[in-house]
């Protein structure tokens, strides 16, 4: 029982971390109907920027405080992400208004390649460290009730809290502001949105900036977990079933999807894996998402796919 709870809890935590990456996908999809293939690259880029500035800033300023270094690095990396967003809009998206999803997807792929190259050129391709003071050692709960207690990872707990806060904030932003409505309009029909005066370019810069910040937070947390290195980009692949399960357009969906996928893959690996030789969690996550889709083809909270003649 204790072990089951532990697995469950572990799954929930991982799920929240997936959500954080998933969120980036959702934001950009919502605002432009584009599946942003560069999300993984953005996470890496942001994390690299953060890690390196946290190294460089104390060197430049001579101030040794970790809080200062990390805080300043976060701000600078955020600015870098804004610049990236602005450039992407200027150089790429602006020229692809009203094109099909596949074309835009491909463009984001080009962006992904570019960011991979640029990130490593600017910031190096080694392993770097983000040390924001996350506690690494385990704590044990309920050790009176269960033998050995239930192991909880504090780092995960903090990360999950940050993820939850971010999601709450974004949900609010989209629900309560007129921008939310404009975003959805843009995603539906670029040209019509333009025709009634919605400034596509500005909207896209805003959204990519927000997505950049989300990528930065995701990169910071995953980077502190894994070390900042190229493999961070592959986290995107694990977040994919989350996005799809939650619904491509739903911010809360990313969270719920994350929790379901997190729990599902951990339980399956732990309880089913041993019978078939293990290593099943990744495809199990996708199959799980698929099963949900068979019942709700638009994901749990996605907007209904419209097909009408």
């Amino acid at each position, binding site marked *: 029982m204790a072990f089951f709870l532990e697995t469950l809890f572990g799954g929930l935590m991982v799920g929240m971390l997936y959500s954080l990456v998933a969120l980036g996908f959702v934001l950009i999809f919502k605002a432009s109907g584009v599946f942003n293939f560069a999300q993984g690259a953005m996470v890496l880029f942001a994390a690299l920027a953060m890690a390196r500035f946290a190294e460089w800033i104390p060197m430049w300023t001579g101030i040794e405080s970790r809080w200062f270094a990390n805080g300043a690095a976060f701000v600078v990396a955020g600015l870098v992400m804004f610049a990236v967003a602005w450039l992407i809009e200027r150089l790429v998206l602006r020229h692809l*208004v*009203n*094109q099909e999803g596949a074309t835009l997807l491909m463009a984001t792929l080009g962006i992904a390649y570019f960011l991979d190259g640029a990130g490593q050129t600017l910031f190096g391709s080694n392993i770097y460290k983000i040390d924001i003071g996350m506690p690494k050692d385990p704590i044990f709960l309920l050790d009176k009730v269960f033998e050995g207690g239930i192991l909880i990872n504090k780092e995960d707990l903090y990360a999950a809290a940050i993820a939850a806060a971010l999601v709450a904030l974004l949900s609010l932003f989209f629900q309560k502001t*007129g921008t939310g*409505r*404009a975003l*959805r*309009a843009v*995603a*539906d*029909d*670029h*040209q*019509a*949105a*333009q*025709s*009634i*005066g*919605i*400034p*596509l*370019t*500005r909207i896209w810069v805003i959204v990519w900036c927000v997505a950049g910040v989300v990528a930065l937070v995701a990169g910071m947390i995953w980077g502190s977990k894994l070390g900042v290195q190229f493999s961070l980009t592959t986290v995107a692949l694990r977040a994919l079933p989350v996005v799809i399960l939650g619904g491509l357009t739903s911010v809360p969906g990313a969270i719920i999807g994350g929790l379901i996928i997190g729990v599902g893959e951990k339980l399956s690996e732990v309880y089913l894996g041993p019978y078939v030789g293990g290593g099943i969690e990744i495809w199990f996550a996708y199959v799980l998402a698929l099963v949900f889709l068979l019942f709700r083809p638009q994901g749990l909270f996605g*907007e*209904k796919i*419209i097909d*009408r003649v």
Partner: protein
Amino acid sequence: MSSPSIVLNVNGIEVIYNHVILVLKGVSLVVPEGGIVALLGGNGAGKTTTLRAVSNLLAGERGAVTKGSIELRGERIEALSPSELVKRGLIQVMEGRHCFAHLTIEDNLMTGAYTRTDGKAAIAETLEKVYAYFPRLKTRRTSQAAYTSGGEQQMCAIGRALMANPTMVLLDEPSMGLAPQIVEEVFEIVKDLNTKERVTFLLAEQNTNMALRYADYGYILENGRIVMDGEARSLRENEDVKEFYLGVGGADRKSFRDVKSYKRRKRWLA
């Protein structure tokens, strides 16, 4: 160059799609302040293209204006983005409705007010006005646009443009898919806005009959060229126009059943 009473001055524009398809071959037209100008012509004449060129929506169709100039109240506007044009009061109602499928009718209408800065109350007022124009929209306000009927979507598209409180509207086939009564109403609305709020209209219409009834001036476009223009009244009297666009060739109206042979439209040489 342009006199102050001219809102829109299109000067010899040429439009090419996809770098190879030449569609407009030097179209010029002038829309005076507070006027209603009709742009007439058969399928594929280039009406939609002209309107897109004015509102700068060609890029998304991979088209481009390669020659000529477009001026709005004396200012060159080829380089302005559509949203800047909307801020200057020029808005287009696109052909084929283009409602935002996932948004409700009301949200669709509200997006039209995106550029407005005159406060919630004013917007709510316009919304009521639009609902008054199209009561049907009010009853369907909470349904997603994709699940409304064709005519309802058309009303929504027109209403959405009106929400921006424009001073000049480009209407592309507003009557398409609307019941006769509503067509009548739409033109009444046009007249109404035109006289009460001095909104200028440029409308591309197939329903020539209606268009010439309400417009002050008309241009006839064929094959990417203006082949005739004139006061609406005089166009209505023109024999050719009568025959080809109004369906009242020569004597009386012919029954659609009795038009025995396919007619070839007279091709003007321009």
